[in-house]
């Protein structure tokens, strides 16, 4: 798979820990919602480092966007979130991964379950849903630490308010203030009898627990797609 040169067109602060980079990638072949890319940074002396990041933009969007959360002792994310600015370049290849994807042509309801920055590939699905005017019943359950940690907060509020359910694990508010549990999943729905396609993304412990609960509620294991990090 070919490495392409990506040039940063714009960067946007999403949260104190995360930034979105809007990229120009000549001859980008297009992607599906849920896929990721490999990126490779090169230092002046030729030293290189590679990592994978989920694509945040819809397949229908004009530019490729990645949202990167800073990992304090990381090697690549601190450069992407703090050093990198408009006009900077790195290499990128992809798209990668054909399983954790949602296409508007897929029929049936969809349940997205995100822990923290696990929202990124699911955001591509929400944006794809909106861009295609899909009539599919799509719902997002997002677990975040506090309101301040919620990625794409304004866009979620303005475009996806009635599709979204939020629980906060480190902030008391008038909504749910606890980890995702069976009651929350039941209330969000759609239930297993509606056979939704389910996509779960987040840190390992979050994904393990959410996937376990979903199977316990009666969802078919084969309908529960998972993607983890960390």
């Amino acid at each position, binding site marked *: 798979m070919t490495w392409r040169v990506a040039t940063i067109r714009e960067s946007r602060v999403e949260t104190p820990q995360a930034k979105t980079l809007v990229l120009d990638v000549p001859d980008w072949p297009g992607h599906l919602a849920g896929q990721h890319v490999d990126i490779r940074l*090169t230092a002046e002396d030729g030293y290189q*480092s590679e990592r994978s990041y989920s694509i945040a933009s819809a397949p229908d969007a004009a530019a490729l966007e990645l949202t990167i959360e800073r990992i304090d002792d990381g090697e690549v994310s601190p450069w992407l979130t703090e050093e990198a600015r408009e006009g900077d370049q790195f290499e990128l290849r992809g798209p990668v991964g054909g399983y954790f994807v949602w296409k508007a042509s897929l029929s049936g309801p969809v349940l997205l379950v995100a822990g923290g920055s696990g929202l990124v590939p699911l955001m591509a699905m929400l944006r794809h849903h909106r861009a295609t005017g899909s009539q599919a019943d799509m719902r997002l359950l997002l677990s975040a630490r506090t309101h301040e940690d919620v990625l794409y907060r304004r866009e979620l509020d303005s475009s996806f308010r009635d599709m979204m359910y939020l629980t906060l694990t480190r902030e008391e508010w008038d909504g749910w203030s606890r980890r995702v549990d069976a009651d929350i999943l039941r209330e969000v729905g759609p239930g297993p009898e509606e056979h939704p396609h389910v996509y779960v993304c987040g840190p390992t412990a979050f994904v393990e627990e959410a996937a376990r609960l979903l199977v316990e509620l009666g969802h078919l294991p084969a309908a*529960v797609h998972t993607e983890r990090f960390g």
Partner: protein
Amino acid sequence: MPPISRGFHGRRQTEVDPSRLPPGQYATNDFPVLSAGPTPHTPLDEWSFTVGGAVKEARSWTWDEFLELPNEVVTRDIHCVTKWSKFDTEWRGVPVERLLEGTDPWGKFVVAWCDGGYTTNLPLADVLDGQAWVAYEYAGEPLDPEHGGPARLLVPHLYFWKSAKWLRGLNIGEQDEPGFWESYGYHNYGDPWKEQRYWSD
């Protein structure tokens, strides 16, 4: 020439022996988890292991029988296609050639199949001669379900998706059949030293 990423210096892992790190990988002490779906939990009294397909004599073991098989402890470096490598991981398992003894396979390919529906394909030659094990202990402890327990394939010379979790059997085939990730764009063979991550690599 790749473009220089301005101001990028990297956090070079000076304590890491570069000759043990395949291209594009970084060393970690964590043990990250990757899988496409929920972790299956098969009770041990319902677990069995089967060698079948293009063999003269299929064989099958219960969990208790499996533990009676000659096994060994091996220490190997493992390399995940998502870029992390972990050095000196210690496993107990049954060498795959011991499981094939007496089965008389005539196919040249293997599909490893698992609880949860996962499969991966390998050339038979790559799981023989001390290159592959069916592992059921990690670092002296029963293998955690998150990491593929009760038993997983261990083929450390290939990217770690080939080391299928929740392994239930090996199916010998006359033809090579792409497994799960191999059907979704990942390389058919997956040699980390040649950086064979994706179809066209």
